[in-house]
């Protein structure tokens, strides 16, 4: 019995909510996996901050063109209908509300929709990239994440304690245990692993979630 979803399974679940033809930005790292799990018959158009719309799969090793990379500096290819543009036009797409969905990772998500995903606070070298732009641009900002940290602390919290990436920006969180919406400053449970009781899930969540009449089972394929 599944005790929690793998990263691939979380990415799969998030991919099911992306419409055919949607314009999508996937954060660097884990969120990039979402592109692999588009349902058959759907093809989203992926945007990367460094100036490509409609990039495709990674190239075969050894055939990389290092002028054709994504925001994570990984080599990519182009799909038919791709376009290049400069960085200001790229962020006009982001900030101007033209992207349908942005899917990002998170250190913490608060019940008011605040997101912390760029800095663990003091020490080290801070780096923000395009995250602060994306959270205020896309029509829908979703997060994919483990439900708790490696040490078991909740990542879904009442208020973020880490430096914020954006205020009241996240509307849906796909975790290793559940799918949770953020509505009117509250977490609302939409789906949970069938193996997990509501009480068990609540104990792993840093703020009380609302339980609507219908909570679906979070069912994903085995990979």
């Amino acid at each position, binding site marked *: 019995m599944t005790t929690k979803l793998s990263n691939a399974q979380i990415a799969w679940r998030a991919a099911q909510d992306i419409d055919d033809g949607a314009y999508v930005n996937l954060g660097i790292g884990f969120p990039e996996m979402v592109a692999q799990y588009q349902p058959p018959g759907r093809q989203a158009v992926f945007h990367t901050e460094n100036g*490509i719309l409609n990039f495709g799969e990674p190239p075969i090793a050894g055939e990389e063109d290092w002028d054709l990379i994504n925001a994570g500096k990984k080599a990519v290819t182009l799909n038919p209908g791709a376009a290049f543009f400069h960085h200001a036009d790229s962020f006009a*797409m982001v900030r*101007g509300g033209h992207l349908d969905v942005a899917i990002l990772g998170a250190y913490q998500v608060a019940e008011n929709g605040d997101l912390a995903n760029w800095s663990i606070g003091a020490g080290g070298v801070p780096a923000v990239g395009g995250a602060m732009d994306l959270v205020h641009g896309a029509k829908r900002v979703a997060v994919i994440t483990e439900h708790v940290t490696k040490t078991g602390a909740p990542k879904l919290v009442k208020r973020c304690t880490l430096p914020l990436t954006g205020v009241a920006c996240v509307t849906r969180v796909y975790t290793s245990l559940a799918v949770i919406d953020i509505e009117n400053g509250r977490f609302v449970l939409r789906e949970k692993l069938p193996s997990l009781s509501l009480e068990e899930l609540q104990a792993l969540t840093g703020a009380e979630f609302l339980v609507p009449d219908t909570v679906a089972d979070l069912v994903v394929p085995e990979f």
Partner: protein
Amino acid sequence: MDKTVPSLVAAVSGIGDGATVMIGGFGGSGAPIELIHALIDRFVATGHPKDLTIVNNNAGNGHVGLAALIEQRMARKLICSFPRSADPRVFTDLYLSGEIELELVPQGTLAERIRAGGAGIPAFYTPTAYGTDLAAGKPIEVFDGRPYVQERWLRADFAIVKAHRGDRHGNLTYNKAARNFNPLMCTAAATTIAQVSEIVAPGEIDPEAVVTPGIFVQALVAVADPQQEEVLNRAGARHP
């Protein structure tokens, strides 16, 4: 993904009363004559859309295109930089009789306000118009010892534009200086409708040559041999 719409009629069917509509072009260059005329034809047949706010650099010329739309009294207000032309009588008469409102905006400020609308920039500062009547009532701020005028973004419900080639994803190229305001307006409207001379398959436009990426375009309609406002006016044309 295929953003192609089968006809001009279908392309403009969603534009309702009271909408703000950006119309591409600079004079006749880049003006989407067929889309404008389709809108006029709908108005003549149905009485809608009316009370439009139109954004364009000019106020039309002669009795075709934007001038013909204004002549039908479909526009409540015009936002433009230069409401003069070889034959501006249509607008001039309505303006002087108080039947159409004019918001006059310096041309570069107009372009930048539209670009800001598309780029999610609600306001910006420009030296343009400082100390003139066109800055009256606008916030002034001094940066590095120099005064600037705060200007707001401009967004629209619809943009109707003329491009040269388009692929089914909405990627567009333009013909020469017919580019002008068209790419900006594509970004600043909730729904952008482009007429193109040719609709091609995705991949047939070089990704380096795309001027308007498809993300900014919601509908495409093919007009193989588009009319030119200047040519129509020299021939004394009228629409309808």
